């Protein structure tokens, strides 16, 4: 298969994934099976990234050289042997074979763009991970100095602050923390607190933070992209719904719903003017969770769940196959 054909197929995958990612937030089935929907989101993200990088590198490669990965390995071999001229010729990046200068320039630009995209995607993910780890370390250090236990919330740390807050700090088992403010303790009853703790424990146990991290990273990297923002918000909501479902196993939905409502309507601490604008991203999310808990929709049938998982697998398999073979 030629580089151009590979590139064309990969471009189809990339564009298809991007279209899928912009349409998925409007679908209503994801809240009937958050786990399957999250899997599909991950597949869409991975496939579009791989395919976009693959498209550009594919355009840069000469014809009939095998898969992109093999070609890159061969190129790396030439590079290692210091045969820069041979490398350039092999890439079609020299005029020795009579390739027109324009074509050489286009190929070079495509190669540079593909590699730049790959590096920047990896960088964005790495930077977000490091930022999250640093913020968590700071939080843990502060909690060590400030938080205390409370028999009302076994296993959680309590911070003396009047506004209502409950959150979890993910990490390895010994480093993860559930934090509740005194305001939340005063706001909620015993059953409601138990529901909140069950919800947060589900986040920690299933490492939902790792699911969310790449989407948050993309949103931070492309704050103007409606697709990235939509994807991050959709996945964040699905992760909350998943944790809500887990919390329901331990207690009645009523406690979880009233905890959600009390939290949502409690207002926040007197933050500096303008800081509240950040809450804009939460529009409708608490209401969506409450509605879902009060009027549970029929769970997605097993056939549909299988179809979604299969679609996710195919979506990732397509660019991977094109890149390797």
């Amino acid at each position, binding site marked *: 298969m030629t580089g151009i054909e590979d590139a064309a197929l990969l471009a189809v995958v990339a564009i298809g994934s991007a279209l899928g990612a912009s349409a998925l937030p409007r679908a209503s089935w994801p809240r009937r099976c958050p786990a399957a929907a999250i899997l599909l989101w991950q597949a869409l993200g991975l496939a579009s990234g791989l395919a976009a990088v693959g498209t550009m590198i594919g355009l840069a490669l000469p014809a009939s050289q095998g898969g992109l990965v093999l070609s890159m390995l061969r190129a790396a071999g030439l590079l290692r042997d210091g045969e820069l001229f041979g490398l350039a010729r092999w890439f079609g990046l020299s005029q020795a074979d009579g390739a027109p200068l324009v074509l050489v320039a286009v190929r070079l630009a495509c190669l540079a763009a593909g590699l730049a995209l790959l590096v920047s995607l990896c960088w964005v993910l790495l930077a977000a991970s490091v930022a999250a780890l640093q913020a968590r370390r700071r939080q843990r250090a502060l909690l060590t100095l*400030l938080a205390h236990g409370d028999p009302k919330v076994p296993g959680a740390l309590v*911070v003396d602050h009047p506004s209502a807050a*409950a959150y979890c700090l993910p990490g390895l088992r010994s480093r993860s923390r559930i934090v509740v403010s005194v305001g939340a303790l005063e706001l909620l009853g015993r059953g409601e607190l138990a529901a909140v703790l069950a919800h*947060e424990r589900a986040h920690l146990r299933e490492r939902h933070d790792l699911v969310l991290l790449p989407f948050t990273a993309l949103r931070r990297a492309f704050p103007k992209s409606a697709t990235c923002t939509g994807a991050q918000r959709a996945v964040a909501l699905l992760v*909350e719904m998943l944790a809500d479902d887990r919390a329901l196993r331990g207690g009645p939905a009523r406690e979880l719903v009233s905890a959600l*409502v009390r939290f949502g309507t409690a207002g926040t*601490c007197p933050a500096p003017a303008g800081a509240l604008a950040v809450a804009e991203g939460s529009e409708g999310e608490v209401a969506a969770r409450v509605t879902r808990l009060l009027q549970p929709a029929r769970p997605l049938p097993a056939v549909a769940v299988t179809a979604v998982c299969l679609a996710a697998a195919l979506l990732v398999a397509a660019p991977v196959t094109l890149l390797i073979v």
Partner: protein
Amino acid sequence: MTTVNRLGELERAIMDVLWDTDTSLTVREVSARLTERNLAHTTVMTVLDRLAKKGFARRERDGRAWRYCPAATRETYVTELMLTALDQTGDRTAALTRFAQSVTGVEAEVLRDALEVIEGSGEGDDGN
């Protein structure tokens, strides 16, 4: 108790001493104010040093000894913790997951109505 927990407890106890005192303190003065009296001088010194390195305590030379004081008030740190928790720093890191965000306007009204409906139908709430 694990070493890490033990160290955390000490850091916390020593910060409490620093926060509860208006002036800066030497290692000896900190030791004297701790409820746990049989701590080695070097242990207290090490923990104070750690706190200074982490930026929670500030130290200044006083003759041959160091004097320590808190870098910021307890309230400042609680506020920092809560601002991050409530996502009001404007810094959207993936560091933590909140239980629920605060809502406003129409959504809040809808939620309050929903709560009334639940409370009306519930067989008595336990707590509150």
